């Protein structure tokens, strides 16, 4: 029932089934797939690496945050795949169930934004003419996200 990190293909029906509840009328599933083109550059494949124990902890923290912010949400979970992923492979799936749809959409959206801020997972893009860790330390960050907020820091 908890969040998962896997090296196997993600099946969206499985994550969907995990959040179905008799009291929930709305389920949202977000699926992040490997896109062929980013900024006009053709990706051949991606490699994902995780600090697994911390990543799982942060994924569970995000689920807790959702349940605090949207108390009506019945269940939420997420799964992230690591290792080598080909174009259209699923990198992440997030499922949220709720009695009514606004909560299901909003909480799901919140979850993916938070993943991109504070879950220690990194991707390396492989192109025909090279490769690069995205969000890396050479000042070539591609996202304004990728950085935890002040409130995420322990003293």
């Amino acid at each position: 029932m908890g969040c998962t990190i896997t090296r196997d293909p993600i099946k969206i029906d499985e994550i969907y089934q995990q959040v179905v509840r008799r009291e929930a009328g709305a389920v949202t599933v977000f699926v992040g797939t490997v896109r062929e083109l980013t900024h006009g550059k053709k990706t051949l494949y991606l490699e994902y690496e995780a600090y697994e124990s911390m990543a799982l902890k942060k994924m569970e923290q995000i689920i807790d945050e959702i349940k605090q912010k949207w108390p009506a949400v019945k269940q939420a979970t997420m799964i992230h795949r690591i290792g080598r992923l080909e174009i259209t492979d699923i990198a992440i799936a997030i499922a949220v169930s709720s009695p009514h749809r606004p909560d299901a959409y909003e909480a799901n959206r919140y979850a993916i934004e938070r993943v991109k801020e504070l879950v220690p997972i990194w991707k390396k893009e492989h192109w025909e003419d090279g490769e690069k860790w995205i969000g890396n330390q050479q000042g070539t960050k591609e996202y304004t996200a990728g950085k935890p907020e002040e409130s995420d820091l322990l003293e």
Partner: protein
Amino acid sequence: MMLFAQLKEDVGKSSLEVEAAGKTVAELRELLENDTSLGSLDGIMVAVNEEFSKDDRVIKKGDVIALIPPVSGG
């Protein structure tokens, strides 16, 4: 100390031995920037026991330290 992604590739291994006990996170960062080949740690977070940590946190013996480059999962 655990390394990931670009940092791991730069150093060529997934961990580094450092004397961190008793130092603050800020002092550890300074030590790493001056005394190792890691270079500038701008934008790199320090995690202590799987939590992102502020500069004034004091590292204790046995703490698990990791350098966290900007994340890019999802």
